[in-house]
């Protein structure tokens, strides 16, 4: 009579089975919640790509210039008015002084001052008109140029996009994210190329807010150093290279990290 093993075995096995079951269910429930945001990262990537494309082929540049010109004009008018007001005030002050001294002298002085002011004003007016004319001409030319460029750009847009993507992929392949990187960080880099495809300069134009991440991006750019795709474009279409690729802005986004 030494204690039977049967019940002990049954109890022990049942205990372990229950524990494993609890662990399995508890564990999975915990992870389903964390899993949900995963597909969102993929969506985020698509959105950024689209926005980049829009930026590159954005046509409303002409509009922008027009608006800027109008704004400048308005500002100039406002300035002229302010000038006028100031002059009037000066005149009044002078008049008062003159009254104190002598009326005749004041009269004469006033007339002279008026004459001068009128002359000045006339001259200013003319100048302004001339400048306006000139500016309008140049703006028109610029707009025309822009228009031409844009039509060409839309032809070349696909090529530029593919090159930009190739550059981005090359950089991302060697880009090692620092431990402090968090999903959703965005770094914008401006890269200057020479026709051999070599990078001559890269500057962070928009920081992610984390110095280590910014540094890691510039390190990755330096690590790749030569981009054969860029060299190819520069060889085959030098004008396209000059226009679009010599200075390229790229956006890097930290994503897919498990946190």
């Amino acid at each position, binding site marked *: 009579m030494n204690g039977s093993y049967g019940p*002990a075995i049954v109890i022990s096995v049942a205990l*372990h089975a229950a524990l494993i079951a609890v662990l399995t269910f508890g564990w999975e429930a915990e992870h389903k919640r964390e899993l949900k945001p995963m597909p969102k990262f993929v969506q985020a990537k698509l959105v950024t790509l689209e926005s980049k494309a829009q930026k590159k082929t954005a046509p409303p540049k002409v509009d922008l210039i027009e608006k800027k010109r109008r704004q400048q004009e308005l500002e100039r008018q406002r300035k002229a008015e302010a000038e006028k007001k100031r002059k009037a005030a000066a005149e009044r002050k002078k008049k008062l002084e003159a009254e104190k001294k002598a009326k005749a002298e004041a009269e004469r002085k006033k007339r002279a001052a008026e004459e001068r002011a009128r002359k000045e004003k006339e001259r200013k007016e003319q100048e302004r008109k001339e400048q306006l004319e000139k500016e309008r001409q140049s703006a028109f030319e610029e707009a025309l140029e822009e228009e031409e460029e844009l039509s060409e750009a839309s032809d070349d847009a696909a090529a530029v996009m593919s090159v930009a993507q190739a550059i981005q992929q090359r950089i991302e392949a060697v880009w090692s994210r620092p431990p402090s990187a968090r999903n959703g960080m965005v770094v914008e880099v401006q890269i200057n190329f020479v026709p051999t495809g070599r990078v001559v300069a890269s500057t962070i134009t928009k920081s992610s807010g984390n110095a280590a991440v910014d540094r890691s991006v510039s390190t990755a750019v330096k690590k790749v150093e030569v981009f054969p795709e860029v060299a190819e474009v520069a060889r085959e279409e030098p004008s396209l290279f000059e226009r679009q690729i010599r200075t390229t802005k790229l956006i890097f986004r930290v994503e897919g990290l498990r946190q």
Partner: protein
Amino acid sequence: MNAGEQLSLWGLISSASLLVQLVMLMLLMASVISWVMIIQRGSYLSRARKSLVNFERRFWSGSDLNQLFRDGNARAEKGRMDGVESIFRAGFTEFTRLRQQGKSSPAAVMEGTERAMRVAMSREQEKVEMNLPFLATVGSVSPYIGLFGTVWGIMNSFRGLATMHQATIATVAPGISEALVATAMGLFAAIPAVMAYNRYSARAEWLLSSYETFAEEFSSILHRKVHAAS
């Protein structure tokens, strides 16, 4: 979705390397067996304690020793006799046998009785301390086995990391996580085993010293009887 599957408990275990899986299996077996021992030992020791208390009460109630001996006859025939009662029966049987022969001196009777009780007691000691060494082994070794599995798993996951281009935490974390399961299992097996070992060895010691005290007391009673008769 794929990452989530990898991170579930079963995903972690199934994606571990063969050696780590073996370690885990071993630890699971050790845990199951040690729990069998814990339950069986616990029930045995508590029963032995109860029967000791019960028997001592009957023994000191002043009833006749022959009567007490006859009460246990039925159970002794079935072979379900243990604890202090078996010591009593061994001593009493030897005593009556030697007395019936009538030739031996009182000193020889006492010597024979004490020897019989010593033999019964060492048998009892064996029963009480059975399986305790196994619990001690599980308690002291299974953390090491688990640690071995973990070190092996981490070693592999770092070796995998060396070939990677990008060393993010996400590339090592699953490997380390799956390796740590082995340590968790080792501790899971070891902690109850150590606790049970300490508790049961203390209880076994107490039981054995109680048996010894009883044997001494019983032999002093018999001693009085022998010398009163002669």
